[in-house]
C-alpha cells in the first residue's frame, strides 16, 4: 500500500500546527511558564509559544500553547477496527430476519448498574427513535424490550434467559474513573458464567464507546455518538448470519 503520511495543518501543508491547553498545579511565574513550554516540547511540539498563561489562584495556572507538532502518522499503515457490515434500511433488515431466523429476533436493551442515562438506549430501542430514525420497537421483525435505567447485570441476565434473548444492547454513558469498564466486564463475566456468551450477540453503546474498546472488553461491537437504530440492527443481523455460516 502506498504510504499516506499526515501531519497537523495550520496554514501550510506540513506545518504541524496544533493548539494545546492545560492546567499546572503551581502558581504562575517565569519558571512555571518555562515548564509549560518544556512540557509542550516533550510532546514533540517545536517552537511552543505560550499564547496565554494565567494564574487561577490557589496555586494553579492555566496555559494555552500553540506550536508545531513534529509527529506525523502514516494513515495507510493504520488498521482500524470497525464492525464490517453494510447499513441496510428497516425493510431490508426485516426481510433478512424473516429469511434467516423465520421468527422475531429478541433484543433486550438496558442502561446497566449505576448508569441512569436512558436517552441513548431509548434513541436506539424506542418507537420514537432519534433524529427521525425510528427505533427497534418499530421493526416488526424484532421484539425490542427496553429495561431502562440502572438495571443490575444479574437482573439483565435473568431476563435474557427468560426472554430467550438473541441480542443484548447495553448503554454506558458515565465513564468517570472508568466505571463503565467495571460495569461492562461484570456483565460479560456473568454471561460467560451462565454459558450464554456465545449464544447472545452482545453490543455496547455510548458517547465514549468505540468499537475498538468494545472488542477489547469481549463485546461483539461498540457504537458511539450519532448511532441510529438501523446501524445496530444491520450489524446484528449481519453478525447473526455470519455466526450461522461459521
Amino acid at each position: 500500500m502506498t504510504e499516506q503520511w499526515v501531519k497537523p495543518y495550520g496554514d501550510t501543508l506540513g506545518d504541524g500546527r496544533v493548539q494545546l491547553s492545560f492546567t499546572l498545579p503551581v502558581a504562575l511565574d517565569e519558571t512555571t511558564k518555562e515548564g509549560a513550554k518544556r512540557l509542550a516540547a516533550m510532546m514533540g511540539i517545536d517552537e511552543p509559544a505560550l499564547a496565554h498563561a494565567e494564574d487561577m489562584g490557589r496555586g494553579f495556572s492555566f496555559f494555552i500553547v500553540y506550536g508545531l507538532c513534529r509527529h506525523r502518522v502514516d494513515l495507510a499503515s493504520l488498521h482500524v477496527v470497525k464492525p464490517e457490515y453494510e447499513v441496510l434500511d428497516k425493510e431490508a433488515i426485516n426481510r433478512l430476519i424473516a429469511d434467516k431466523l423465520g421468527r422475531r429476533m429478541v433484543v433486550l436493551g438496558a442502561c446497566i448498574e449505576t448508569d441512569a442515562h436512558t436517552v441513548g438506549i431509548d434513541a436506539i430501542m424506542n418507537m420514537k427513535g432519534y433524529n427521525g430514525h425510528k427505533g427497534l420497537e418499530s421493526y416488526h421483525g424484532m421484539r425490542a424490550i427496553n429495561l431502562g435505567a440502572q438495571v443490575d447485570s444479574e437482573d439483565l441476565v435473568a431476563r435474557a434467559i427468560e426472554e430467550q434473548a438473541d441480542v443484548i444492547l447495553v448503554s454506558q454513558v458515565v465513564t468517570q474513573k472508568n466505571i463503565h469498564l467495571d460495569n461492562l466486564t461484570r456483565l460479560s463475566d456473568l454471561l460467560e458464567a451462565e454459558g450464554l456468551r456465545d449464544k447472545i450477540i452482545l453490543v455496547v453503546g455510548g458517547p465514549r464507546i468505540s468499537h475498538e474498546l468494545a472488542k477489547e472488553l469481549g463485546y461483539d461491537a461498540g457504537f458511539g455518538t450519532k448511532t441510529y437504530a438501523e446501524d445496530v440492527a444491520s450489524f446484528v443481523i449481519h453478525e447473526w448470519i455470519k455466526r450461522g455460516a461459521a
Partner: protein
Amino acid sequence: MTQLHLDQAQIDRARDSARRIAQRVYDEMSRFTTTTVERATLRLLGVDGVDENLVPLPNRVVSHLQERQLLQHGAASAVLGAMKEHGLSAMQVAEAVAAGTLSLNRPKNEAAARADADAQARSMCERIIRQRTQREARIKSVGEASLPWLYLIVATGNIHEDIVQAQAAAEQGADIIAVIRSTGQSLLDYVPYGATTEGFGGTYATQENFRLMRAALDEVGERLGRYIRLTNYCSGLCMPEIAAMGAIERLDMMLNDSMYGIIFRDINMQRTFIDQFFSRMVNAYAGVIINTGEDNYLTTADAYEAAHTVLASQLINEQFAYLSGLKPDQMGLGHAFEINPEMENGFLWELAHAQLVRQVFPDAALKYMPPTKHMSGNIFMGHLQDALFNIVSTATRQNIHLLGMLTEALHTPLIQDRFLAIQNAKYVFSTMKDLHAEIQFKPGGLIESRAQTVLAEAERMLAEIEEIGLPAAIGKGMFAEISRTPDGGKGLDGVVRKSDDYYNPFPKLMLGGR
C-alpha cells in the same frame, strides 16, 4: 427587560389549580410515614454512626422497629422511652439496639416519652437555629455575593480533592459550590458515613463530607470577603435524612424536588411525596434554599415543545413548598436553557421562557441551568452556547446561575473548565450590566406571543392534572415523557401507614403547630 404582557388572571388560575393538586397529594400522603422520615427523625434526636458492617445506626433502629411492628407509631417515642427507662443517650440506645442488647417497645409512659422527645427535638431545633443565625452573621460580617450567584459544581469523587477544587472555584468567583453526588447514591436506602474518597461522577453525600466542605468554604469565604454557599442533593431514597444532616452542618441550598426522584430515579411516588414533605420542612426551618429540578425534563423532552411542562411543574413545586413552610425566597425553582442550537430563533424562545418564569415568580430565587443536552464535544461551540445562556440569565434577572461548562458533553469539570466558565459569565454580566433595563420586548411580537402561548399551555395542563390527579398525570408521562405508576418504583416497602397515635415531635416545632 420591560415586562411581557401576561394575563394575571390566567396566572392566578394556573396557580390555584396547582394549589389544589398539591393539597390533594398532601392530604392523601400525610397518613403515611416512611423509613427514611423516621431515620431522619432519629438523626435529629441525636442518633448517628454506623455498626461494624458500616450500616448506619438510624437504619438499624428503624429496621428493628419495623420488625417489631412499631414504626407506625413513630420512632421518636420508642427511643425516648427507652432512653428514660435505661438512662441512656439516644446514641447509646441505638448502639444497644444494634448490638442486640436492647429491644425497643412502646414507651411505658407515652406522654412522658413525647414530652422528652419534644424537649430533645427543641434542643436540636435550637442548634439548627444557631446555624441559621450563624449563616446570617457570617453573611453580614464577611459579605454577600452579588446577584446572580455563580453556582459551580465539584465532582471529583474524593472529598479532599473536591475541597481543593471548591476553594479554587471560589477564588475564581464562584458564589455557590455544589458537591455533586456519586451516581447511584440516590438509590441507596441509607446514607454513607464519614469522609469518602471514592465516588463516580461525584462524591458521596455524608455528614462528615458536609462538615469538611462547610469548613473549607467558610475559610475561603473569609479570605475572599464573600460568604460561599454550599449545596448538595436532597433527593433519592434518603431525602429527609440528607435534609437533617444539611440543617445540622449548615448547608445553604439543597436540590430538592417534589417529582425528580419519581421521574428520573424511578423511586416510588408515594415514598417521594412523603419524604419530600418532611425534607422540605427541615429545609424551610434551616433557612435552606431549595432547588427544584424542572430543568431535567428538558434533558429527555424537547425544550420548545415541553416548555409549558416546566412552568406547570414549577407551580406545583411552589405549592408543595408552601405546604412545608418554605418562603418564596427559599424557592429556587429550576428551569434551563436547553434549546436546540440549530433551531432558528431558539434564543428568542429561551428569552421568552426565562422572562415568563421571572414574571410568574417575581419573588422566587430562580435557578437557571445552562445548556447540557445539546452540548457536544465541540468545546468551542459549547462555550458560545454557554455565553448565550449567560446573556439570557442577566437579561431576565435570574438569581441562581449555574455555570455552563464547555466540556459538558465530555466529563465532569476539570479545573480549567470551571475557570473558563467563570470568565465567560463575568464578561457577559459586566459588559451587559444594564442591558436588562435598556431593552424592551416588542408588544405583540414573537417573544411576547411565545410567552403567552407557554403560559396558556401550562394553565391547560394544570387543569387537566387537577382533573385526573397528580399520580395519574405522572402515569401518563406528562412530565419529561417518562411514565411512572403509584405502586411502581423503588422504596415503596419503606412506606408505612401511620397509626392513629403516630407521633413525631418535629412538625409542630418546625412548622409552628401545623
